[in-house]
């Protein structure tokens, strides 16, 4: 039986009267897991709690066998979890290279960090833009830079919140290849709205709805699930409205 890298038990967050997240979830080491769900399902809130960017209300998070509930973000990162937030958060005024260098340096030090950053520039295809300030990058390029920053420190678990937002179909295919490559070395959880993307990823899918796990299974199973179709395409039709 594969190692459980992440075990989440009754993790809860309230915003005022709204229960944004209340869920149990386990992820095996080596998985490439997709997390889907309509707008406001609580996916980003869940990610922020995992990574330490936001304190959970109650419940526990175990990562690599340790209880990391309520840890500071930098300690979670040092234990080997990295995150790409939903809102673009590259360091705009630093160069592309320095963004990656900073992400690699805490783990590998200055020199080795520079080498890792250069290698990652190749992987994400931004070598030619290495010395431009990150703010000059296009939307898609920023997303790749974020993915690069999330993976250059060789984390055990990578959380990616909507990495293909704003990408063209071609760019998205490239991103799928990139994720599969990252998945060779790390467990990946990716939040996405695009069904084509999720089909291409072809990993296990968890559906969130109103803060809870609504369904879980392969993409085929999820697509056959009438309940899932209802929450996506039912009243309000969030999915279609989006973008």
């Amino acid at each position, binding site marked *: 039986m594969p190692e459980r890298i992440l075990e989440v038990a009754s993790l809860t967050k309230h915003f005022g009267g709204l229960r944004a997240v209340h869920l149990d979830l386990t992820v095996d080491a080596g998985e490439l897991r997709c997390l889907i769900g309509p707008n406001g399902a609580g996916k980003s809130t869940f990610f922020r709690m995992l*990574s*330490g*960017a936001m304190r959970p209300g109650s419940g526990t998070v175990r990562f690599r066998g340790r209880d990391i509930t309520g840890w*500071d*973000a*930098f300690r*979670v*990162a*040092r234990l080997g979890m*990295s*995150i790409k*937030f939903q809102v673009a*958060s*590259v*360091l*705009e*005024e*630093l160069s592309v290279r*320095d963004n990656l*260098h*900073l*992400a690699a*340096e*805490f*783990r590998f030090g*200055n020199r080795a960090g520079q080498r890792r950053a250069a290698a990652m520039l190749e992987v994400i295809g931004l070598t030619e833009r290495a010395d431009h300030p990150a703010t000059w990058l296009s939307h898609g390029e920023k997303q790749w830079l974020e993915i690069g*920053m999330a993976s250059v*420190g060789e984390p055990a678990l990578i959380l990616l919140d909507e990495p293909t937002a704003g990408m063209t179909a071609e760019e998205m295919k490239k991103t799928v290849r990139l994720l599969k490559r990252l998945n060779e070395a790390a467990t990946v959880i990716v939040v996405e709205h695009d069904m084509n993307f999720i089909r291409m990823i072809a990993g296990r899918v968890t559906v969130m709805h109103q803060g809870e796990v609504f369904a879980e299974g392969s993409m085929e199973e999820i697509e056959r699930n009438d309940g899932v179709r209802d929450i996506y395409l039912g009243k309000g039709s969030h999915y279609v409205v989006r973008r």
Partner: protein
Amino acid sequence: MRRVWSSTETLAALLLLLPLLAVPWAFKPYAANVLAVYMIYGILALSLTLIWGYAGIMSFGQTAFFGIGAYAYGAIGLNWINRTQQTHAALVGGLVAAALLAAVVGYFMFYGRISDVYASIITLALTLVLFAFAVSTGGDEWVIGVARFGGFNGMFGQGESSQNIANFQIPPVTVWLPGMAEPFQFKINRESAAGYFLVLGASVLVYVVVRWLLRVRLGRVAIGIRENEARVASLGYDTRFYKFALFTIAGAIAGLAGILFAAWGRFVNPDRFGLGFASSTVVYVLLGGRTSLLGGFVGAAIIGYLTSYLAEIVPFATIPGDATPWMRFLMEAGRRIVREAPLLVQGAVLVGIVLALEDGVTPPLSRLLTRYRRWAWWVLLPVVVLYFAHRVACLQADWCLF
């Protein structure tokens, strides 16, 4: 391949340093004295640039560390100078006092999970509390050894009338190292410009050290914090520690400026903690440019010059008899405003500059220098060198062309 000798940086360094090195020979000692205090304020402003411009933490009361450095240097220096003939302990003590105060305040601010927004208020409160305290030290009981705090009148060394020792001032920086026949005093007067060169050397040193700091991890993380603190934390950096470390270093630099100030004027009083000085420091940085390490120096020099210039000029000293009543009124008003409210004029000029150039004056200047590098190299630099060479020849050997 980048040609080092022709880079803009080398050029800027030459354009600044050659004249500054020549000043003691090219002008009367008064000029060196005035420039020294501009540079001291520049060092203080640089410490604010470091944490405000680079780490994004506004410290309105950076003067607290300046004042503590000055008072600690004064208290230790006054007590030790007559016994040991040097101020080594006072130099170290001033630095340590400033760094320690900054470390304690920084610890509570950053580890206490207080939002950075409050840093400006907390540091301002700190400097104002110190101001109130320093003002209240006028009584006889406020002494450390022979150092009297002196309340509003400032710190001095208490003499002993029974032994015929008069009151004395804070000593200039004085070193007496093993192997030296007698102590050496860094003073600025007709005979010596050593004090001036000490301040110039300290400015260059601090500038170089800060530049280096910004290139190593500490500085890169600091810039990252300014850009997006949560992101930097999620990359594995304990941002509290980096802010704390940077704040402490900036405090020590401000303390160094305070030491140099007390040694330069041989005097310190509570004004160095006051609101006026605190806001001047912020203005130096804003005017010079928050993102440029030279900005604080440029800002301090501009304000210093403007202040002394406005103190001297008398516009419309004589009003022509045939002026209309309106003209008369305007001229009279102009003269009065400049004479009696120079701060108003200074403020107006500042607001104008800051509105026109939101990054301050230094970045556009350095862009100009980069654009016209050839001209600057082959025309401006030689003109500057010739001008100063002529000044030196004129003042030292009376070879004056005009």
